[in-house]
C-alpha cells in the first residue's frame, strides 16, 4: 500500500518540521494536497508539505523492495512593506529555509525518518522570481525523495 506509506511519510515530514522549528509561533505548518493561495491574504510564514509520488526501485533483498517517496515542501511569506522586497528581507528568508527546512530534511545525519527512511535526492527552487516581482511573495519549493527498504 504505497499511498498509505506516502501519507505516513508526509505526516512525518510535517511533524519533523514542526518539532524542530526555532520559532514555531511565527510559522504555520500543514500537510496539503493542493495550494490555493491568494497573495493578498497570506499572513505570516506558511509551510506546506505535499505528498509528491511513489516509485518502486526493484528488490532490495528477498523480503523487501527499495521504495522512493517524494515529498514537496513549499514555504510562502508575503512582503508587506512598501515597494519591492529589500535584499536583506529576502536574505533572511533564504537563510531561514536553509536552516529550518533544507538542512533538517535533506541531511541524513539528522536521523532517519520514521526510523527507516533516508533522504536520497533533494532539490530546491530557492525562490520564485515571478511571484516575488509581481506579488511580493516569497515562494520557496523543496523536493525531498526518501528511500527505504523495510
Amino acid at each position, binding site marked *: 500500500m504505497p499511498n498509505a506509506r506516502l501519507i505516513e511519510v508526509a505526516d512525518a515530514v510535517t511533524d519533523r518540521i514542526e518539532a524542530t522549528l526555532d520559532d514555531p509561533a511565527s510559522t504555520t505548518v500543514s500537510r496539503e494536497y493542493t495550494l490555493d493561495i491568494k497573495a493578498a491574504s497570506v499572513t505570516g510564514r506558511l509551510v506546506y508539505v505535499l505528498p509528491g509520488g511513489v516509485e518502486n526501485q526493484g528488490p532490495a533483498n*528477498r523480503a523487501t523492495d527499495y521504495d522512493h517517496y517524494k515529498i514537496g515542501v513549499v514555504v510562502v511569506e508575503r512582503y508587506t512593506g512598501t515597494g519591492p522586497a529589500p535584499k536583506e528581507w529576502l536574505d533572511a528568508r533564504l537563510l531561514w529555509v536553509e536552516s529550518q527546512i533544507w538542512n533538517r530534511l535533506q541531511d541524513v545525519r539528522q536521523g532517519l525518518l520514521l526510523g527507516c527512511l533516508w533522504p536520497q535526492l533533494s532539490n530546491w527552487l530557492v525562490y520564485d522570481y515571478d511571484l516575488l516581482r509581481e506579488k511580493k511573495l516569497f515562494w520557496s519549493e523543496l523536493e525531498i525523495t526518501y528511500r527505504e527498504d523495510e
Partner: protein
Amino acid sequence: MASLGILAKAYRNTASYGTPTWVEIDKIADLAVNPSWDEAEGGSRDSRVKKIAKTMLGIEITGRIKVDTADAGYIALRDAMYTDIAIDLLILNGASDGNGNHGWRADWHVFEGGEDQAMGNRLYMDFVLRVADTANDPKYAEVSGGAPTFTDPGATS
C-alpha cells in the same frame, strides 16, 4: 511457476539438528550456491579415453545480507562470522514446501563478512559459507511430499 532468485530461500535451524525448526533468513539480497567436485584421473590401458573420478565435494555459498541489528538471521550470520560457531542452514532454490525444490543442508562456518561502508551505501554484509567440520554430515536436500528430504552427496541408487 518460474524459478526466480528472489523466491529462493535460506532457512536457519533454531531448534535441534534432529528436530529442526526452520526460520527463513529473508534479508538476504544475493546468494550463489557453488558445489564443485574435486577430480582424480582414472585412466588406464583398457581405454584411450581419459576417465575422471569424482572424489571430494566442496560446497561454497556466497551471499549478501542487509545489515539489520534487529534481524535474527543477520545476527546469526554476523555472530558466526567472528566466532567458531557453526550454523545449521538449509539453502534451497525455492520454498521448503515446494515439491522439487532442492539445495543443501549443512552446518556452515562463515568465513568472510565484508561490509562496504561507502558513504552512499545502505549497508550489507557479504558473506562466504563453507561446510563446517561437525558431527552432522552435510546433505543434499530435495523437497518431496511437502517437506525437505535429505541424502548424502555422492550416494548412488
